[in-house]
């Protein structure tokens, strides 16, 4: 039992200066000794076994706050802090039993409730009988030291708390727990700013009056007590009185219970305040003193650091978790490799690839050479090695590589990215890869599909070309025969029928041409054949073409030219008219009782170049927006074709659009349903001062087949395997006055030429008529040669003929359904002299024969000259041709401008004067080669420059001199001189008129 358990109330209370019970020599002690005891800073107490106070000195009373009067009624048990009571009483008991305790520590509770930590010596006084009677205690106040120790411990605990606590919540309760070792923390809180600073939240809040505790929801900064203390930005100790005054001054708003005292300190990291910690007491004002506040301030920095660290750690944890989730959930293979090519991390997909294909389990620190690289061929390994090398030098790598897996060869796309550490070094490289085989495959499929499509497009083109060729051959028969038929005497009714057939076959040709045009455009083989043309004439022609149609539907059709539009341009008239016709016929088709107006304007000019915009505006039914986009596609209107009145295939717009592009322009449409449409296009055309010839067309219309060759009857060999074609051509030729032999194969043709030569060579009839100086006669005047024949085609036949007959062979003109103009050059290079396209038109065929008859004077032509020369009064040949060939000169102007032509003509005038003089002089000298040479050049030059009549005149002379016949030179040369004079008189004026 402790001595305190049996307190004896009757025992007199010891007081200062009262002689002690145990006969302490207080009375006998000197006053000096008394003074020492009274004034020492040590706490001295003498208590009896029951704990009653026998004596306490002043220092003791100062330290505890009790007065002597109070102490008389008290025991030590009431002074010792309840927390330490049992422990302390036990120590007294041990001392009573004779034990020695060198450092006796205990804690008193002051009158005001605060603790006083004491440490010192306690011993027991015994009476004569050896019975213990009292305890002598000499303590010194260790409160400050203890506080310092605790503070230090606290500081250390909090500093290491980031290591010992698992989470932020753990940390907060640890801080709370540790702090409570030092000061009262029945009410403790941590308040933090939200990073945005406008929010305040309490991650930790323990309060006697707030039982919901922990984790206040965050709240907006207001004017509460906490905010006030934060705003103060320094440690604060506020007592109830202060708080009430602040509330009265409206500095704060009070909520809840008002504490008796509040201590708080800001949490600082550097200059930044991150929050606040505080303790409160609702018990008494003096619960804390200024040292507690200092303590709080002392640890606040650590708390702030600890919280910040822990927050960063939590953030890092979150970030890691996030990255990990990405690392693992991705469909990509991911891994990292260090400089020794060892795996340092990898994800599940990487793991799976290695395990499934190599029966190995990848592990950290295994060399990648034993892993992923096993899936590559030697060459690829070298590549990858190099890529790693570059990645370790800081250059990110991206490449595609083939891996040999058990599921076959798979393509992987691979990224190697250097992992840059904060100091800029690279220890590892991160690899990311994914299987792109399906992607690759679909790309390949796509390519294959594209090639397939292109191939079938080619097949289509070829088919179109072949088909149109196949169609052209029978068309040849139809159109040719119709031409002939319309030349026979017909009844009115018959004539109408023939006209219908003619029109229908022409329509068919238009369609055929459309298809051909499109395939030519698609094959990039469309070429424009440009020549000067008058825009006004072009539009007039258009109006006259469609006037009838417009009128039939009560439409007003007109055109309007803007200012500055050039009068003449160089353009492909056929193609331009094709575009205009197409747009106009479309406009008329969808318009009734309205108008179709064409306008043409120059948009810009660059020198002679004009960008011209043509609009075809109708007031028709219009086109829905969804229709507009499909409009220019090929074949889109095929189903409407029956309604078209002019060359309709539905290809029209597609072709027109392509043609405008060839003319460096574009085409478009704007339309409003019910209001009408505007189709427009632009083209870039060069202005010219040359006016085009329309003479030819007029002549063409008056062309008469019958007896075209009145005086001369050319001998023609017609070679064609097709009976219809033979029939058509020979009928035309016969009707025109030719003599015609036919052959249905190459071999027959050779036989015919051979037979003809034999006949002529042996025949006396011709020979007798010919003069002895004449060269070996041509077998025929002209051979018309079909190109496509079985067995031996036209080109082969011609080659063979040339081999057999050489210079005796007459000109060979190819007849072919090949319609590309480019083919012409091919035939010419293969030994044929000229070319005529099928279907054979009577006029074209006859003119072609005439052309060659003029160029190569035949036996018959020569004979005619003879006849003429025999006439008594030889007169100049009728000047049937114009002085100048307008077409040739226009072409030259188109190529080099009028100025060039003028200067060239001047050159010619000078040179020709010389040549004529030279030729005549040479003739007088008897230098016939020189005569021939001069005439030959003069002939060529005159022809080249389109000086037509002079050309003809020289040609006529030169045809003889060329073969050594100078018999008519003297008679004919005046014609040449005369024509040359005419040229000199007229050419300047003529050129000025261009």
């Amino acid at each position, binding site marked *: 039992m402790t001595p305190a358990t049996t307190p004896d109330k009757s025992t007199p209370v010891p007081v200062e200066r009262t002689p002690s019970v145990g006969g302490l020599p207080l009375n006998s002690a000197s006053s000096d000794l008394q003074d020492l005891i009274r004034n020492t800073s040590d706490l001295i107490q003498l208590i009896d076994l029951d704990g009653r106070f026998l004596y306490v000195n002043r220092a003791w009373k100062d330290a505890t706050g009790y007065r002597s009067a109070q102490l008389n009624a008290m025991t030590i048990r009431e002074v010792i802090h309840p927390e330490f009571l049992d422990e302390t009483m036990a120590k007294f008991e041990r001392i009573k039993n004779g034990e020695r305790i060198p450092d006796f520590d205990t804690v008193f509770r002051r009158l005001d409730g605060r603790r006083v930590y004491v440490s010192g010596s306690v011993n027991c006084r015994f009476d004569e009988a050896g019975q213990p009677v009292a305890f002598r205690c000499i303590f010194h106040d260790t409160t400050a030291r203890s506080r310092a120790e605790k503070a230090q411990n606290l500081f250390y605990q909090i500093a290491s708390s980031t290591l010992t606590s698992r989470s932020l919540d753990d940390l907060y309760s640890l801080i709370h727990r540790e702090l409570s070792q030092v000061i009262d923390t029945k009410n403790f809180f941590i308040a933090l700013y939200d990073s945005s600073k406008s929010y305040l939240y309490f991650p930790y809040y323990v309060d006697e009056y707030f039982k919901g505790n922990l984790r206040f929801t965050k709240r907006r900064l207001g004017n509460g007590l906490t905010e006030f203390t934060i705003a103060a930005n320094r440690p604060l100790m506020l007592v109830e009185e202060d708080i009430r005054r602040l509330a009265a001054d409206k500095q704060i708003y009070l909520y809840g219970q008002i504490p008796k005292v509040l201590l708080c300190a800001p949490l600082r990291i550097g200059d930044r305040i991150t929050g606040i910690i505080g303790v409160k007491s609702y018990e008494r004002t003096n619960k804390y003193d200024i040292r507690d506040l200092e303590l709080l301030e002392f640890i606040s920095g650590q708390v702030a650091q600890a919280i910040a660290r822990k927050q960063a750690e939590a953030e890092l944890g979150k970030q890691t978790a996030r990255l990990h989730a990405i690392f693992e959930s991705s469909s990509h293979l991911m891994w990292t490799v260090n400089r020794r090519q060892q795996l340092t991390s990898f994800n599940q997909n990487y793991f799976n690839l290695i395990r499934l294909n190599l029966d190995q389990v990848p592990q950290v620190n295994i060399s990648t050479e034993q892993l992923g690289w096993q899936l590559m061929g030697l060459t690829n390994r070298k590549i990858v090695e190099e890529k790693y090398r570059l990645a370790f030098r800081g250059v990110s790598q991206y490449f595609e590589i083939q891996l040999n897996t058990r599921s076959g060869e798979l393509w992987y796309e691979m990224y190697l990215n250097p992992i840059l550490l904060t100091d800029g070094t690279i220890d590892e490289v991160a690899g990311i890869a994914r299987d792109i085989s399906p992607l690759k495959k679909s790309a390949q499929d796509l390519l294959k599909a594209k090639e397939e499509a292109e191939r079938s497009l080619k097949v289509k083109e070829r088919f179109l070309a072949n088909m149109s060729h196949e169609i052209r051959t029978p068309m040849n028969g139809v159109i040719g025969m119709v031409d002939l038929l319309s030349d026979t005497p017909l009844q009115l009714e018959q004539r109408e029928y023939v006209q219908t057939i003619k029109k229908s076959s022409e329509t068919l040709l238009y369609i055929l041409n459309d298809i051909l045009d499109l395939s030519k455009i698609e094959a990039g083989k469309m070429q424009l054949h440009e020549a000067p043309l008058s825009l006004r004439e072009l539009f007039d022609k258009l109006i006259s073409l469609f006037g009838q149609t417009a009128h039939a539907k009560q439409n007003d059709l007109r055109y309007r030219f803007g200012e500055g539009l050039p009068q003449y341009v160089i353009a492909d008239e056929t193609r331009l008219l094709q575009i205009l016709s197409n747009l106009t016929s479309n406009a008329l088709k969808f318009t009734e009782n309205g108008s179709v107006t064409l306008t043409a304007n120059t948009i810009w000019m660059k020198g002679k170049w004009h960008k011209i915009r043509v609009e075809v505006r109708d007031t028709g039914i219009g086109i829905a927006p969804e229709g507009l986009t499909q409009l220019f596609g090929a074949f889109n209107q095929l189903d409407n074709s029956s309604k078209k009145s002019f060359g309709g295939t539905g290809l029209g717009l597609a072709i027109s659009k392509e043609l405008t592009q060839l003319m460096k322009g574009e085409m478009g449409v704007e339309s409003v349903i019910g209001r009408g449409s505007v189709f427009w296009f632009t083209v870039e055309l060069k202005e010219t001062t040359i006016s085009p010839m329309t003479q030819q067309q007029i002549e063409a219309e008056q062309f008469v087949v019958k007896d075209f060759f009145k005086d001369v009857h050319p001998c023609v060999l017609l070679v064609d395997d097709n009976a219809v074609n033979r029939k058509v051509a020979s009928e035309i030729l016969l009707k025109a006055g030719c003599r015609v032999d036919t052959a249905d194969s190459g071999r027959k043709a050779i036989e015919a030429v051979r037979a003809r030569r034999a006949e002529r060579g042996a025949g006396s009839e011709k020979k007798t008529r010919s003069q002895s100086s004449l060269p070996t006669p041509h077998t025929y005047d002209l051979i018309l040669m079909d190109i496509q024949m079985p067995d031996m085609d036209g080109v082969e036949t011609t080659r063979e003929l*040339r081999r057999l007959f050489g*210079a005796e062979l007459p000109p060979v003109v190819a007849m072919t359904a090949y319609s590309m103009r480019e083919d012409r050059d091919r035939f010419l290079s293969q030994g044929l002299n000229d070319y005529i396209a099928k279907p054979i038109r009577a006029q074209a065929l006859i003119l072609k024969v005439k052309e060659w008859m003029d160029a190569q004077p035949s036996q018959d032509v020569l004979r005619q000259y003879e006849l003429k020369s025999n006439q008594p009064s030889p007169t100049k040949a009728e000047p049937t041709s114009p002085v100048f060939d307008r077409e040739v000169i226009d072409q030259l102007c188109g*190529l080099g401008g009028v100025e060039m032509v003028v200067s060239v003509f001047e050159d010619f005038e000078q040179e020709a004067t010389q040549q004529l003089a030279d030729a005549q002089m040479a003739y007088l000298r008897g230098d016939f080669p020189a005569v021939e040479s001069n005439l030959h050049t003069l002939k060529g*030059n005159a022809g080249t420059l389109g000086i037509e009549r002079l050309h003809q005149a020289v040609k006529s002379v030169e045809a003889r001199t060329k073969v050594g016949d100078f018999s008519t030179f003297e008679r004919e040369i005046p014609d040449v001189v005369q024509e040359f004079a005419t040229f000199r008189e007229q050419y300047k004026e003529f050129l000025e008129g261009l």
Partner: protein
Amino acid sequence: MATHKRVLIAEDSSVIQNLAKKILEFQNFEITSVKNGEQVLQIIDKEDFDIILLDINMPLMDGMECARRVRALPDPEKAKIPMIAITGNARNYSPEEFKAAGFNDMLIKPLNFDALVALVKGLTE
């Protein structure tokens, strides 16, 4: 065109020479003209051309002879310069004969300059 293609024209008649020169210059060719076959051989010894237009009927050395000599040149680059014969065909050469002389193609007088331009372009591309 960064550099113009160079055309050498050998033509007796200055009319045709000038005309061809102007028309081809208009088409961005650079033209050098000479009067006969001998001059052709002299100039191509020193300079490079992309194509040669040869009149057949020339004094001193005619086009046929000139073409054969060009094709026989020791410098393989020069020996294969494209050549076009320009002829009124006074002597009725066959296309085979022009080919045999080394011409790539031929044009018959009266000249069609459209065809000339097309041919020159075709052979210099």
